[in-house]
């Protein structure tokens, strides 16, 4: 479940203008606890699935990779959001255990 959240967060982080590794780590809410070691496999997976595109560009005399969302990535975000009612239902069920 957390993996799904992370994936959606990373997609959201590259959905506006293109972004790069460290900025994605900074942009994603701290509560997700995203680190580079989690981000790297995730970015590769998303790239393979065609959800993001990658380009290298020079920055301060070195190469930096920039990531941008694709239409497939946007569709994945929609899919994620469409499942919100199901999650709410689960939340309410678990919440019911308190009373």
């Amino acid at each position: 479940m957390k993996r799904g959240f992370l994936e959606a967060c990373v997609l959201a982080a590259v959905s506006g203008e293109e972004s790069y590794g460290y900025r994605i780590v900074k942009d994603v809410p701290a509560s997700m606890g995203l680190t580079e070691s989690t981000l790297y496999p995730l970015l590769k997976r998303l790239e393979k699935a065609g959800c993001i595109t990658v380009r290298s560009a020079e920055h301060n005399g070195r190469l930096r990779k920039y990531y941008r969302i694709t239409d497939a990535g946007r569709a994945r975000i929609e899919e994620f959001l469409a499942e919100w009612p199901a999650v709410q239902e689960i939340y309410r069920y678990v919440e019911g255990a308190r009373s």
Partner: protein
Amino acid sequence: MKKNEFLDRLGDLLACLPADQVEESKEFYAEAIADRMEDGMGEEEAVAAMGTPGEVAEAILDDLPAVPRAIAKTRRRSTVLLWVLAIVGSPVWVPLLLAFAAVAFTVYVCIWTLAICVWIVAAALVGIAPVMLVLAYDGFMIGHVPFVIVSLGWALGFLGLGLLVGTAAWAVSKQIARLSALWVKKALSPFRKDRGGNGNSGTTAGRPHGPWGTPAPGAQSNDAGTARLSAVAAR
């Protein structure tokens, strides 16, 4: 730890992977460390933020399918250990692998036997038509008109039925091509990564479940993958 030290260590730990993948991983972490240093961190602090090289390598290897992962992890401990295990364990893993391949192949054959059955029924039905035509000819020769008409009727009827079943057989074959492609994908999933990054045991990309772990409505990404696979299989 210094940046180069970290990257060298990471390279060593990932030595079981293809060289380009190791290079790509090292580049990613080199960039991440450089970006943190640009942000005002010291070199050691930036390197420490990545975690230990062991943890980083672990995260990369964890993304591999089951069998290459097991091999990579054993090899990381020691190449000798991998060979010792491979040789000593061969009475176990060779028959297991053969059994796995045999089961996979049998399921594949069973799936296709189904399609062949429907085709045989269709061919049999179409095959009756010429026989009926011969009977009609015989009736014509002896001048029995009602028999000729009935035989011609049967011939046309069986031909029609045969063509109908043939259409069904075609549809069934297409479905079965899809099924068998899915089966091949499933059977190979412990060994290799899916090409489109779609549907792989343990990864979220293209999973049959939604990103939350609940069944996805329509599971579109999966259908797209299936369609692509059946297109490949149909070729």
